[in-house]
């Protein structure tokens, strides 16, 4: 653990209230932090109520997926995730543009193409042109992230999880998911591979607690094949307090919960609470100490 490492405890609770009793439900959740670069998950637990044994796999985009089949009748389903995640400030690199011929034969081509929630329409193309002219350099990508934050208002409740880029541009207000989709459309239109990142935004100061919702931002890929996080909601680079959960082409690929149920219920309204606390070094030591003690106990049990 370096001096620039920040450690967070994350608690992410999702309650689904069905409109009537459900006899059986199948659920896929993408809630386990995705380690990469400086991000590391020190502890993770996923519990459901009613109880189900989670089975995990890794999806197309490299995200963890847990499948929980709840076979006892239920009217309410709760997922509780508790995790300890550490992260460091990523290096702020300047990305160089792709040679379009090289990109044509590269798997990252997929992230330049339109996706279900990120159509590459005339409106986002002309918006890029209005802001940056014909310049498609990395500087314009950065400027676009900052400009989205300046030109559009962050208003929670202005849009829904199903809102489109057109809805955002018409209303002029939205939340991180909308800004992320808009930014994706603009940078993809300019020839940059870019993907959707879902995650959390933690507090910067020690002992501070953030309560709220999940966060979303963008990763752009340079011609060296490496991804760099840019957050159009803050207008800045993704930092050590950006904790990644999953990546995909757009929200559809990373939605934290997909479910299917049998029964009389018409649907379920999810109620999500996320609580993220910056842990002091002392607390982190305690987690690591507990982990070490637990490991020792296990070893002794196995030997005994």
């Amino acid at each position, binding site marked *: 653990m370096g001096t620039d490492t920040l450690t967070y405890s994350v608690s992410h609770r999702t309650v689904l209230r069905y409109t009537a009793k459900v006899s059986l439900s*199948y659920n*896929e959740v993408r809630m386990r932090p995705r380690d990469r670069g400086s991000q590391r998950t020190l502890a993770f637990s996923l519990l459901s109520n009613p109880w189900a044994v989670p089975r995990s*796999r890794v*999806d*197309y*985009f490299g995200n963890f997926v847990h*499948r929980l*089949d709840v076979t006892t009748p239920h009217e309410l389903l709760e997922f509780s995730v508790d995790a300890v995640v550490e992260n460091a400030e990523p290096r702020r690199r300047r990305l160089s543009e792709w040679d379009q011929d090289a990109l*044509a*034969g*590269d*798997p990252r*081509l*997929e992230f330049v*193409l*339109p996706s279900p929630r990120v159509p590459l329409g005339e409106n986002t193309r002309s918006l890029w042109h209005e802001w940056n002219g014909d310049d498609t350099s990395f500087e314009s990508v950065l400027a676009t992230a900052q400009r989205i934050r300046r030109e559009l208002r962050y208003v929670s409740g202005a849009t829904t999880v199903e809102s489109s880029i057109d809805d955002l541009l018409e209303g002029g207000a939205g939340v991180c998911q909308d800004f992320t989709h808009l930014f994706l459309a603009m940078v993809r239109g300019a020839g940059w591979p870019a993907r959707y990142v879902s995650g959390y935004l933690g507090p910067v100061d020690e002992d501070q607690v953030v309560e709220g919702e999940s966060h979303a931002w963008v990763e752009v890929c340079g011609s060296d094949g490496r991804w760099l996080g840019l957050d159009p909601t803050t207008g800045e680079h993704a930092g050590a307090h950006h904790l990644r959960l999953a990546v995909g082409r757009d929200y559809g*690929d990373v939605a934290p919960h*997909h479910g*299917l149920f049998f029964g009389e219920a018409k649907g379920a309204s999810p109620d999500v609470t996320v609580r993220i606390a910056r842990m002091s070094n002392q607390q982190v030591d305690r987690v690591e100490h507990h982990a070490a003690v637990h490991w020792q106990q296990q070893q002794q049990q196995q030997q005994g």
Partner: protein
Amino acid sequence: MTTDAGVARGLAFGLPRAADECVDLDGVVRPPYAELLATLERAAATLPQLRRNAQEWFADRGVTFGVPTEGVAPIFPFDPVPRVLSSAEWRSLSRALSQRAMALDLFVSDCYGSQRAIRHGVVPGRLVYSSTGYLRDIVGIRPPRATWCHVSGIDVVRVNGTFHVLEDNVRIPSGIAYALESRRAMESLAPEWFKLAPVRPIHGYTGRLRRILQRIAPRQWDADIVVLTPGSYNAAYYEHQLLAAEMNATLVEGHELIVVEDEVYRRDAEGAAQRVDVIYSRVNSEWLDPLVFRRDSILGAPGLIEAWRRGNVAIANAPGTGVADDKVIYPYVPAMIRYYLGEEPLMDNVPTYDLTDAQQQDHVVANFDRMVLKPVDASGGYGLHFGRLMSSNEASGFLDGVKANPRQWLAQEEVALSRAVCLRAGGGFEPRAVDLRPFVLLDERPWIVPGGLTRVAGDPDELVVNSSHGGGSKDTWVLTH
């Protein structure tokens, strides 16, 4: 037969002097048809009765194709004059079909594996990644025996005397039941015709298919096989019933399957749960598992893909094969054959253009009056636009739409399909356009049922040969020598 006599005979049947199914480039009747046409002349008086008998035969057996209206699905139209292929023709055709089916299978395998063909520029990644048939959730899965396209139906047409591929079907190619029934009809209605020439039998198809399904089963010694159908409202429901019955498999709909702890079960007649080993699926992949693909699907069963991923159930054709029969992929099949097999393609495509490529698009626009544009996401011959049938105003408006959405269209040069002799409704003969859908089964080696489904246009002027367009079928004869 002298040339003049041959031409005269062809003309007597209303056949053109140009290349055709029954006559060669000079208008001479082609050898495999010589005997048959002579017989038709001799039996001319009985043919109207034969035609009525055939209609009755199909109605009695309830051979239907199409969506039932008011509870009754339409009877499949049938023409009793067989379509005949010589053994030499069939030999070269079947070699070309095997080659193509193997390349398509390797392509599907590659798309869900290391994607070599994309990295080497053989097939453009932009087309694969934007294909609705490319299913991201199954990348990395390796099905049993590494076979994806257990059955492929490759539509071929004869243009200027030579067979060309018109379209590949590796998702859920249908039609074999109509080919089998067409043969049964002829054997019972005109058994004496089979004495004219030795015709290769086709009844071995269902046994072969069953053997392939058995081989991919997790429990090969005691495989429980089901045919998964979208239900009686599907146009090919008759075929699903026939295949299930002849393969000794159970016909099920998605709601009759349940997945418990990654094992697939069905209820048997006594209500007991039976474990399912193999699903011969006639439901499109996108509808198979609402947990993974289309969330609004009621045609599949939740959890099916995970069961398949873990090897607890086999599915044929494997989910995801749609990436190879996406119409925009078709122009690249010859390149695939060279790339995967290191061979030259034995059969050409009909000249086809990828409109997402600027150069090819220019060519199509410049030669629009020779082109047919097909919508990528439609089948059954719907939505075709013939350049020469449009006014210049219509054409420019239509082409603007195409340029705005080039991924949605495929351009093919309009080709004159060969025509074959058919019985006219009021007596006498008329030529109608035909194509051929042979069925290739992939096991260790490809196996092709001799012949396949010959589809006939609904009337003499119809340009589209498709069962969804009122077309019918003929029995297809492959001669043993």
